């Protein structure tokens, strides 16, 4: 499954990079969301998938899946959420101030 997930994550990365190169604020913001999904899945995948029960000791399993990446991903998810919220508001304010969501028009002048 790790092989499959690596490929899936690669695909998500491709889509993300493609979206990063688009012209609308919204697409770029969407790209950041997808990107965070991709890396979180990657972190889980790289430690091996489905090799035991959920890491709660009361389940009394023989083996548990690696809990550390889960904890790390949890932290990362929260951070990604915070960043997304900030980014959303920032792009919203950008639109309000510049009256455009077109990154082509948000280039700024050449001499800057």
């Amino acid at each position, binding site marked *: 499954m790790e092989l499959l997930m690596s*490929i*899936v994550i*690669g695909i998500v*990365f491709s889509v993300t990079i*493609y979206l990063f190169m688009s012209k609308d604020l919204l*697409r770029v913001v969407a790209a950041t969301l997808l990107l965070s999904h991709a890396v979180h899945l990657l972190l889980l995948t790289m430690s091996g998938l489905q090799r035991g029960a959920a*890491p709660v000791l009361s389940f009394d399993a023989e083996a548990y899946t690696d809990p550390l990446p889960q904890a790390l991903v949890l*932290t990362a998810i929260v951070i990604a959420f915070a960043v997304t919220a900030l980014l959303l508001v920032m792009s919203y304010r950008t639109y309000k101030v510049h009256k455009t969501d077109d990154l082509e028009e948000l280039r700024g002048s050449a001499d800057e």
Partner: protein
Amino acid sequence: MTLLHWAVLSPFIAAILIPFLYKYLKRIHTGWFVLILPLVLFIYFLSFIPRTSSGEAILNNLDWVPSLGINFNVYVDGLSLLFALLITGIGALVVLYSIYYLSKRKEKLNNFYVYLLMFMGAMLGVVLSDNLIVIYVFWEVTSIASSLLISYWYTREKSIYGAQKSMYITVFGGLSMLAGFSLLYVIAGTFSIRELIANADIVMASGLFIPAMILVLLGAFTKSAQFPFHIWLPDAMEAPTPVSAYLHSATMVKAGIYLVARLTGVFGGAPEWFWIITIAGLVTLTWGSISAVRQKDLKGILAFSTISQLGLIMSLLGTGSAAFYFQDGDNALYMTAILAAVFHLVNHATFKGSLFMAAGIVDHETGTRDIRKLGGLMTIMPITATISLIGLASMAGLPPFNGFLSKEMFLTGMLNVTEYGIFHLETFGFIIPIIAWIASVFTFLYCILMFSKTFMGKFDSSKLKVQHVHEAPIGMLISPIILAVLVVVFGLFPNLLAYSIIEPAMAAIAPGILSPGEFFDVHITHWHGFLAPELWMTIGVVVLGVILFMTFKKWENTAFYRGERDLFNYAYDYGYDGLVKGSQWLTRIQMTGRLRDYFIYMCTFIILIMAYTMYRYNLPAIQSLDLSPVPIYVWFVIAVFIGSVIVIPFINNRVALIIATSVSGFIVALLFVLFRAPDLALTQLLIETVSVILFMLVFYHLPKLKKVKTPPKLKAVKLIISIGFGLIITLGSLSAFSLGQEANYSSISEYYTENAKEEAGGYNIVNVILVDFRGLDTMLEVLVVALAVLTVVSLIRLRFKGSEDV
């Protein structure tokens, strides 16, 4: 710290005091305070003459940065003493002159004297240090001080231009010199000149010898205004005249000469050293003297004449370096050139100093330096005229002035070259004296021109802005008179200097040539006899020079004479513009302001470098992966996931876009469940929900998505880059994963599983990790959330226009 160290540093200390003296003792011209220092120093350095003339050298050590091999070791021998005397002696005269030249009411004297003292200290440092890096340090300080002095009248465009030009060119030279010094260090493991000279054979044998030499010479040539780096010197004439007299003729420009002389012991004897310096010197000599003829500005003439004279000294040092090639033979043949170099160095300082001061007086009294406006000043300013006449005659090489003596010796030195019998000189060495002779003709010509245009002819007050032109005040005349007297005295009694100053300097330039206790024969005579070719060459110079002067009217209107500006200035100006324009172009194409371009550049870089690494190391090297099985339902979930992700770039409806994005988020939550991560699934679910709410709130206001019309070419680029990037991530992950399985390290997680209950009192390992094992992460993660909120709130509430604060 010895007295010598204090002597070098004393100008800097004085410089710190100047602003206070200027501020609190306004009634006395600050220059009077300044004058004390060079006088005292001059006398102090005079006291070294007995020791150096007996061949002794004084070395006082002081550690500065010993771990980098940088030590402030002061070294006094004949050569450094000669320069120290020049710096302090001319320095004293220049300060005295400046007291009358610069008005204490109109000028910012504090700035002027601070710069001047900084320069004096730095210059002393250059000539008195034994350590190359310390020399470099002081070297750059002289560049900075010189630029500041050039820009002294900082509101003038030309001053700024000149200051920058001199700074860039000399600092450029300084940096290459530093590179050369570093190479020397790499070769010999020391920055000490004495040790380098002692290890000259190691240096000579190294493959880095030539690069080191060229780099060091670049430094010397830029500083000493050698062709084609001389272009900064004429523009440096924007500085107040005392500065021109001091820095740009007597001292700073001779730092390059000093360096070449000093390092002759290291590099001398190599044919490259001989040729580069000789040719550079001769070309500079000729170019300078021809260009000087074209100048209309008194200081312009003097600037080019300085360039030309520096070239003369340089060429002498070059030819003299052959002495190292014949260490055992009769050295008189080669040492004549060195003798001439040292002697001319002194002479040039005297006559050029007096000439600059005279030019300054003319400028000061008439308000112009343009020789087309001047004329007939002989009767109005008789003393100035006499000073100029002495100086110019000496420069032109006429007897009985000191310039005549050193010029003769110069010709002898150049003639000797044909007899060297090395470097194929016997065949085409004859060109060298011919070039020298031609240059001397032009030197003679511009000397006559300068004198006749300024002092002879008719006085026309209508061309001048100043009403009553009269002779300068006596104070201003003292310094040039002293220098003119010296010109005469050294001319009549050259042997005053011969054994006290010149011979020790020669011995310092050419270490190891003499056996201990031996001295060079430096008896200087006026008369070499009728058969001496030098005499006939001088006569030829005078004759041809006079002819050219007589016919001057004929070629006065030629393009050659009217074009005042040196060709190489255009190179500098185009280079300057080209640098700015080129860098603007470079910056424009990369800093486009387009996020897309940034990603194209960044991702291309990442893909290339990762792909190269993978290629280089044959990655991913997958042997046998231990993969967990993929149940059917996972295939299904993943198919939906990929579908929801891939569709996103094609969506042109913002609501649909948001929905598709959040669907993918929810599927990730589902995947977390499948991967047995309940906490993650729960968190992801909640966060996705809140995110959707946020999305909806915010994008309620955003405009509809436009249909994207991407040009096919761009689309292809985007596709290639994004697919390439995805591939890199996949391949990289596989390599890392397979290496992980190969390495088979046990994860630190095992510790958590074992200890979660007993040591941390919790069953949910993930939560225990979060709040206990890695509690710090969580604490900071919460901080991140808080920060995001603070930012969001400030973003909504603060709406500046851009001029509220700085």
